[in-house]
């Protein structure tokens, strides 16, 4: 077992999941705002 690889994998896990959650949370906030400020006028669009 190469400990450097294992350490790199753990760092990748930490940084990777953080990045994914950051992107997701930003998208979540923007979508929430979009939904709030761009009300739907078309019934067929529901």
């Amino acid at each position: 077992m190469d400990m450097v690889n294992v350490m790199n994998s753990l760092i990748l896990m930490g940084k990777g999941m953080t990045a994914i959650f950051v992107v997701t949370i930003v998208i979540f906030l923007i979508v929430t705002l979009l939904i709030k400020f761009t009300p739907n006028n078309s019934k067929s669009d529901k």
Partner: protein
Amino acid sequence: MDFLIQGITAITWQQVLMWGIGGLLIYLAICKDLEPALLLPMGFGAILVNIPFSGVLHQTLVGIGDVNGIIEWLFEVGIEAAEVLPLLLFIGIGAMIDFGPLLSNPKLFLFGAAAQFGIFVTVVFASMLGFDFKDAVSIGIIGAADGPTSLLVSQVLKSNYIGTIAVVAYSYMALVPIIQPIAIKLVTTKKERRIKMPYNPKSVSQTTRVLFPIVVSIIAGLVAPASVALVGFLMFGNLIRECGVLKSLSETAQKEFANIITLVLGITISATMRAESMISVQTLMIMGLGLLAFVFDTISGVLVAKIFNLFLKEKINPMIGGAGISAFPMSARVVQKLGLEEDKHNFLLMHAIGTNVSGQIASVIAGGVILSLVPTLIR
């Protein structure tokens, strides 16, 4: 007359075994209806590339020199050069996805993110089993539960196991209805599986639907520039769908275009399914690690949903967290079926679909994030 038996005498037992594996893939595609659009071309291609001196692979002929083989050429041009085929397929996939159920309940985004955890757990295990870091990452990406993403990442990282990874990724996607119920039941109680969730979708405007793919591409691109190709092409397909003025292009992207790319992609992947690279202990290890990735994806999605429940007044059924993997729509159907098994009035499909499409976005973001991070770690 030696040339008549030249092919027969050159057969190895590994090649015969690969014919068997090709036959198995064809059987699964035809008789079990498991991802037939991909497994059938891959299975047939696996037979073609494992015939001795096969004309579908590059050969050096005595007195003539190098002769190109169609499948190997397709691989070099369609995948190796710029990952053209997987990326083009994303346009079709993007055009097929309706993000409506997700946009009407944006918190479902977080379950898609959580269900990518299996990728990283698998990378750690693969590293512990002695795989090279780039190979370990390529194996981990099987957990994206997204064939094109797995292919693209393993190709960019120049993994030695691209063919195996593709076969394992697509096979496990087809096996989601078997793998996920076991994983979900492991971490949920009967009472939790019975939680009902009323479906009251918020109205989503056309403006939101059009802006969504643009916003996602920009945000993902800013955080992980390597994700621009993956996310961008997926979102481009979705923009064509939602813009409302390209109906004909949208329909073509969803049907004919996606079908043609899928057809070519399947047989092209088989270029990597040669006996010398597939028949090894590592293949078995990758199969085990792929399974681990799917199980951890599912469990992490469910657990995050359970954590949400600690703070929410109106409880959510934690099973929908398990649908946060990219395998669409199988994963959503699994959750719906499990909900109905516990209570025949428990309809979870629309919530699960929302989570499932969030998993599609999260998996391509995960692929891009990994491509951005790996070079910084192997410097």
